[in-house]
Every structure is written in C-alpha cells, then in structure tokens.
C-alpha cells in the first residue's frame, strides 16, 4: 500500500504562508480588535512600592461601584504553582492584593469604565495607603542570614534550593581551575502585542467566554476554572490572533483571573488591554541568572568539571502552572554544554525577590547556561593560550559518540557537532579574522570573533516532564482531522499558532499524508470549544507534537478512506493505492470527494457495518520522551569602539541542525528572529531595579528593543541529521536562535580585548559595561595586577 502525492513532496517545501494574507490586508483579529457590544474597559491600580502592607484602599466618591478590590469579588481559589515537590514553597498569588504587595506593579484594585481613558481616570482617583516593608532586590543577598523575607512563613527567601552532583569529585582537582562570576540580567519578553483579556458570560451557552492572548488556552482554562470555582464545561477560552508570545503568554496571570471574576460580578463584558508600561513592569520577566562557577581542566585542555552556585532571581511569586524552578534545573543540566565534561557539582537557588514574577522566555534558562559554559571555555582557552575554537573542537562530543548521555543525564541524540563547529568556522573565515586582527583597524576599533555552541532540547515527552515534577505534563498533542462532504479538510489542533506558521506547516504534513494540496486543508486552533485538548505552543514542541498528531490522525483517516474507496471500486483494499486525492484500484479510481460524500451524507454507499463520517482524533508522543536535540554553532565578528564601548556586529554566521525541515523558509525565519532576540539579550535589553525595588526601564525610551540597523542578516547553513524518535525526523527549533547569541557575542567582545584580559561576563553588554570592563583591564594591566574576574 503506497501513499504518494500527485506532484509535490510537501515535506521540505518552502511553501509561502497561508496566514499571511489577512495580516497583509489588516484583517488580523487580535485581542484588542475583538468587538463586543456593551464591553467596558478595566484599568488596574497597581502597587508603586516593591514591598508593602496595603493599609487602606479609598475609592473615589461617586466611583465606588466601579472600583473593585479582592474583597469585592466572589471568593476565589489560589492556584498553587511550581513543581509538585514538597521542598518547593507555596507563594500564594491572589488576583488582586490580599493586603500585601511584593513588587512594583502588582494589581491592587480594578476600575471599570466605558473606555480605557475613563477607567484610568478612575484609577487615578483611587487612594492607596501603603506601609513600606524592606525590599529584597538582590537574589544573592536575599539568601544571606538576616535578609528581609517576602513570605513570613518561609525560613528564607528560596522557593527551592537544589543541587546537582554527578561524576567523580576528584576530577575537579585539576591543574587548571578558573573561577568566574557571570550574570545574565533581567529582561521582559516584549511581544509587540501586549497581553489582553476580554471576558463575558454567554447566556445562550450558559458559560464564561474568555478571549485571551495566550499560547495555550486549554491549560489556562483548567486554571481559570479552578480559580473561579466553575466546572470546565462552563468556561470557554478563545485565543484570537496572538501578536507574539515567546513564553510571555504561557502562564496564568493575575489580570486574567481578575477580569474573568469581574465579568462574573458585573454581568456585562469587560476587557483589559495591557499597555506597554504595564508589560514592562508587571508582565512576565525573564533571564536574571547569576553564576559563580569554577571550571576545571587538564593542562592539555581536556575539560573536566563545573562546580559552583546558580542563583535564579525568580521575582515575587510562582506563576501557574509551573513556576520558574525549571530555570534552575535546566540551567544546571545544560552547564556541560555539548562537551565531555564528566563532573558537575552545583547548588541552585530559586530565589524570591521583590520584582515581577519570572516566567518562561524563548530559550528558557539555556541562554544563561550557554553564556556561562561558553564563556568559561573561552576563559580556559585564554588561560592556556589556546585558540578557543580548537579547545571546543577538542572537547565536543563527536558524531561517533552520539547518542551521548551528558553528565547531567540528557541524551544527545543525532547529529554531527564537529561538522557544525567546523562549517561555522569556515563560514566566518577564522584565519582571515585572525589576519585582520594582526593590524590595527583604521578607525581605532578592535575586532573580535566569538563562537558559541548550543543544544536545544525539544519534543520532550511524558518521562521528561514527570521528572521535572511538572504540574501539567505536556507529553502529547492531539489533532482532530475532519473531512467535509466535498473532500476538503478541517484540522483542529491543541497547539496555538502565533507567528510560527502552523497553518502552513501542519497543512503541508496533512497534504503529504493524504496526497492533497495544502490549499484544500484548513488548520484551526485557539478555541477550547472546538479543538481537542492540547497544551499549546512553547518549548519548541509544536512541529514535533502537533505535526506528529496531524500525521498520525491523517493516517488513521486514510485507512478508512481507503476501505470506502475499495468498497466503491469493488476491489480489495490491498490492491489500492492513494494518489492525488483519490483511491486508485486496478480498474479505476474514486475521488476523496466521492468517498467523503458517501461517508457524510450518502451512507448507503458505505461497506456494511461501517460507521459514517470521516472524523478522527488522534494523539501523538515521540518514541523517545527525553527529547530530541537540535543544535548549532553561532559565529560572530564584532567591532568594538574601546572608549565608548559601542559594539557593532560585522558578521553573523550560523551552522545549525534541526533535523528534517518541513518548511525551510519558516525555519530560516525562526532562526533569524530568535537571533534578533538573542542579540537583544546580549547587548540591549534589561530591566534594572534600584535598591528599593523600583524598575528603571518602563518605556521603550529606556528599554532597548533592537531595530533593523542593529540586527544583521544572519548567514545560515543547515546540516540535516533527522531525529530517530519523531515523525519525518523533525526536531523543534523555535528557541535555538535565542540561546547562543549572548555567549557568541560576549566571546567576540572578549576576543577583541584578549590582549589586556578584559572580562565580559554580564549581559546586556551595554556601551557602559563594555567600556568600563576595558578601562578596568587597562588600569590593571598598567598596575601589573590582574583584573577582577
């Protein structure tokens, strides 16, 4: 039995996207575009202190019925968030303050008015009396005895402390031992569309309808129903077009619950559309890792071990469902990188501070871990007087060693890491850069070249998520494939397209399986009332899981189509083949349209005893649930102005492998877009807090999102080593682009100043940080001392 497409092989075709047309015409339907008769806008009164008791909330005269505090809403359940570990401490996070506020921006009251402007007017007239408490703003100091505490019932400020110990501690007793402190500072996720929620009670269906800009409506519905005390069949979550997420729209946030509760209370539709200031101050924050690590190596450059401490500044609360413990576990488990490092001894601290709660952001923890290990590798190379590239080449896992189990227990599956390294080196032309560096630049700038290697775990299933003690276990995805009476196809999936091109790639997969044209296939998502249960789009999982679910469901469907076709052709199923949207037998063919018509509306033509309909729901999980690993090497050339510290990227080359590509055009777009975000982390984006916990970047005037002049067009090379555990050999790739840029760029800047030994171990590498590091190193060199690590 053969399935072959009439003309095209859709797997691997750079099909132009089906979702483009509506956006190009301005027909996109984002959360703020949803029109609902009678809707009123919500503005939140937020804490302007980092840590305080709320003494009083005084509602304005004439506005008391439009201003809501927690006690004005019906009682709600607090969702316990974070891993299901007894050692993980509960940080009760109410939708509106329960008398204590723990970060600037925490919602205290909600004001409802016919327009946002009027709601903000009302919010301006709400008086809040706060009694300041000492703010905890440094995650390392927060763990010192005597530090003020966020939660009175906790013995210290750790959500959880943990450790990773693998390998022989004797390995650490090595001739080379370098200790470095590295920091990746706090940033926002900055989807260009901010968050938003619109909720109303639909009387016809007798249910709460929540329009939400989210990456995963089904999981949100579980949380909302629990928080509000409603059965899940009375809650419908609809995600319209979502204007970017990157992780920042993958947790339940207090505003989501508050607006839903308000809708239940006031009896008319209410909505809240986040503004950019709210987004920067009170949406998901990310990164904020501090590493104090010692790397050990033999004199010949063999890397042996990594020891030390990892601090995650997780902000004030755990966000449902999973909190931010995965930051610490993923950071520590990725600290061996792709190298044969046998010894790990790490203590990790996930620390509560008076800052906005941490959530996932593209790359989750791995940008920090990659930055740490790849900087350390360069530091060892500098110590040994070696070319950093050669040290990587010496220590990296080779193709012959794959699959390789790292010291932290991750199974690196397929690929050729050496080939990725070497092709990136050739693309960037390392010898030419070294030759260029031998002469001073005419403009006085210093040239540096940096490499970074990343792996990207994707498509990890049940076992991995259970190991992480995840509160929900996103170990599968589902697809409902429904052939209409005319033979066209509608597929509902539980993932959430928000820029990734699923309407195109999932249609390509179905087209491949069913020998149809993608134009005959509609992909639908984003509505809990119509789609089968799924976990949403995050963790580079959608092409593996949703792609697999579509493939599997289509195969189940095609078997039934074939049986009906054989019956209509009066032949045996084994003598049929599928081609060009028809079942072919020895003496003729019957189109899917005829078969679908019979299956749906002319069931007298079906084989005796066969159920009507062509409607299949299937689920999918890869055969290896530890995940499949995409990987790649980033190579970057920078020019740095030493006195101002301004960094320009002169060249950026990537050699990557995400297995089989369903749509190479979309893959390239994901890599380029991820790198732009990684460059933001490396050089520009930061939300600093002052010593009393005030956020210092609250507009795009002081939060620097890179624009077209700052982002180079990346030169891309693809290696293709298919995964063995997934459909078609795909690996997830959405996050990879964002992982390596901070490491590669910091290595390039350090390379430019390797002669004076300047350290660049903190992101973003703003002009001030770069120029100060150079200045420190110059002074130290002049004094004959060594600069602080």
């Amino acid at each position: 039995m053969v399935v072959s497409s009439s003309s095209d092989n859709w797997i691997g075709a750079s099909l132009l996207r089906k979702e483009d047309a509506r956006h190009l015409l301005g027909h996109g339907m984002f959360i703020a575009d949803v029109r609902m008769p009678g809707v009123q806008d919500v503005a939140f009164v937020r804490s302007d202190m980092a840590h305080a008791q709320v003494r009083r909330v005084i509602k304005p005269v004439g506005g008391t019925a439009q201003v809501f505090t927690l006690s004005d809403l019906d009682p709600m359940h607090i969702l316990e968030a974070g891993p299901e570990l007894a050692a993980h401490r509960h940080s009760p996070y109410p939708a509106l303050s329960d008398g204590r506020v723990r970060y600037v921006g925490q919602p205290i009251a909600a004001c409802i008015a016919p327009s946002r402007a009027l709601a903000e007017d009302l919010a301006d007239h709400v008086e809040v009396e706060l009694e300041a408490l000492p703010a905890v703003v440094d995650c390392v100091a927060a763990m010192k005895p005597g530090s003020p505490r966020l939660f009175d019932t906790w013995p210290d400020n750790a959500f959880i402390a943990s450790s990773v110990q693998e390998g022989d501690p004797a390995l650490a007793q090595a001739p080379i031992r370098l200790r470095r402190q590295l920091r990746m500072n706090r940033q926002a996720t900055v989807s260009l569309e901010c968050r938003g929620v619109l909720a109303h009670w639909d009387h016809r269906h007798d249910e709460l309808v929540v329009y939400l800009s989210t990456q995963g409506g089904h999981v949100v519905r579980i949380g909302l129903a629990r928080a509000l005390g409603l059965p899940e069949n009375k809650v419908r979550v609809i995600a319209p077009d979502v204007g970017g997420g990157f992780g920042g729209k993958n947790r339940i946030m207090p505003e989501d619950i508050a607006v839903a509760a308000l809708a239940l209370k006031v009896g008319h539709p209410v909505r809240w559309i986040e503004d950019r200031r709210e987004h920067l101050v009170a949406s998901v924050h990310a990164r904020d890792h501090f590493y104090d690590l010692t790397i050990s190596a033999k004199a010949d450059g063999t890397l042996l071990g990594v020891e030390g401490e990892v601090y995650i500044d997780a902000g004030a609360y755990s966000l449902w469902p999973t909190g931010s413990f995965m930051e610490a576990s993923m950071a520590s488990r990725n600290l061996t990188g792709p190298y044969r490092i046998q010894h790990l001894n790490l203590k990790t601290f996930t620390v509560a501070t008076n800052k906005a709660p941490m959530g996932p952001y593209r790359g989750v923890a791995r940008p920090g871990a990659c930055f740490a290990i790849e900087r350390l590798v360069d530091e060892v190379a500098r110590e040994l007087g070696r070319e950093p590239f050669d040290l990587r080449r010496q220590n990296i896992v080779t193709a012959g060693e794959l699959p390789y189990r790292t010291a932290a227990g991750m199974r690196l599956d397929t690929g050729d890491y050496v080939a990725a390294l070497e092709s990136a080196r050739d693309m960037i032309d390392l010898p030419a850069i070294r030759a260029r560096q031998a002469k001073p630049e005419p403009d006085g700038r210093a040239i540096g070249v940096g490499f970074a290697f990343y792996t990207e775990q994707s498509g990890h299933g049940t076992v991995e998520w259970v190991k992480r003690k995840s509160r929900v276990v996103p170990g599968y995805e589902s697809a409902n494939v429904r052939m209409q009476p005319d033979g066209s196809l509608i597929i509902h999936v539980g993932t959430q397209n928000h820029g990734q091109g699923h309407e195109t790639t999932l249609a390509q997969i179905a087209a491949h399986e069913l020998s149809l044209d993608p134009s005959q296939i509609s992909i639908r998502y984003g509505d809990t009332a119509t789609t089968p249960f799924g976990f949403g789009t995050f963790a580079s999982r959608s092409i593996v899981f949703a792609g697999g679910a579509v493939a599997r469901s289509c195969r189940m469907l095609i078997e039934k189509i074939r049986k009906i076709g054989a019956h209509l052709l009066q032949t045996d199923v084994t003598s049929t083949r599928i081609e060009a949207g028809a079942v072919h037998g020895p003496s003729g063919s019957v189109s899917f349209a005829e078969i679908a018509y019979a299956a749906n509306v002319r069931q007298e033509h079906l084989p005796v005893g066969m159920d009507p309909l062509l409607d299949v729901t299937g689920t999918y999980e890869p055969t290896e649930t530890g995940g499949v690993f995409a990987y790649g090497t980033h190579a970057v050339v920078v020019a740095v102005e030493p006195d101002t510290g301004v960094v320009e990227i002169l060249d950026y080359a990537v050699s990557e492998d995400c297995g089989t590509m369903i749509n190479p055009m979309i893959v390239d777009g994901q890599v380029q877009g991820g790198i732009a975000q990684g460059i933001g982390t490396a050089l520009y984006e930061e939300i600093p807090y002052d010593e009393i916990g005030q956020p210092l970047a609250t507009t795009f005037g002081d939060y620097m999102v890179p624009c077209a002049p700052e982002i180079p067009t990346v030169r891309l090379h693809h290696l293709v080593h298919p995964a063995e555990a997934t459909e078609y050999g795909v690996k997830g790739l959405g996050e990879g682009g964002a992982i390596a840029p901070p490491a590669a760029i910091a290595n390039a800047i350090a390379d430019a100043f390797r002669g004076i030994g300047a350290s660049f171990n903190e992101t973003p590498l703003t002009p001030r940080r770069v120029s100060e590091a150079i200045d420190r190193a110059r002074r130290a060199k002049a004094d004959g001392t060594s600069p602080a690590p």
Partner: protein
Amino acid sequence: MTAITVELNGVKVVDDVEPRLSLADFLRDRCGLTATHLGCEHGACGACTVMVDGLATRSCLTLAAMADGRSVSTLEGLRGDPLMALLRRHFHESHALQCGFCTPGMLIAARDILQRHTRPDDKTVRHELSGQICRCTGYANIVKAIVAAGQKMPQEPSPPPPAATSQS
C-alpha cells in the same frame, strides 16, 4: 468636545471627539479601523503608523483633533494602492511577517520609504526602518522585501513630501 472633519481613506468623516483622544483610538474605536495596531502608545514602536497628508505619522502621538481638516490613510484605505499591492506581494514572498502584529505599520512605513527613495539599498532601508519594531522576524526578510519591491517599482517615485523628516 472638539468637532473634527477628517478625510479618512478618501471619505469625509465628521465627528465630535474628546480633545485628548488619540488619532489611533479615533481610528480603532470610533471608526472601526483596526488594521492600525498599538504596540507602545508612546511613539517608539511604529505599529500605529498611518499617513497624514501624505506623511508617515505615529497615530498614537497624534491627537484626533490634530487631524481636523487633514487627509488620513490607513492600511484599509490602501488596499487598492498599486505600490501597497507590490509590497504585500514581496512581504509574502520574502516571509517578512510572522505574528503579523507589526505588519500594518511596517507596510505603511515601507510604502513611505519607497516613495522617498529610488531603489533603496539594504542600508538605506534599515536606517529608514529604525523607528519600526518587529519582535518576530529579526528584520532581515522585511528589509529584503522592501528592497525587492523597490527594484520592481514601475516608475520613478513621486517627489518627496515637503518635510525632510516623515515621523511625527
């Protein structure tokens, strides 16, 4: 309230607006034209860019009252515009959009660039785009699309508008 008369996408619109109402909110909430998106509401991201009297303008920083007596074009009003059709085609073929939220503002800005520059090169387009944020694409394909559209423009661009800078 302030009485305003605006030529909106070629149609005369008369309304009474609060003096503080932004042009963006006027377009979106009072006129139902939701192609114009709001990404920051402080003039930094460019998602709300529209044309006012032929100049690319931040509608979030412009009051509706300031549009009185002026001509305003949004993406909805440029659906039949040949240059916009060319740009849409190249944005599609170059994969110059992902989530689509920045796209309307990008298209208006791109059209403005091609009206002011003949066959602009990569560097010119990047410089001119410095007021538009896209969080998904990393810009490469947007630049590629605009450069390609510039190459395909059938005629010389119309003379530049009177003001040297086009952003409000």
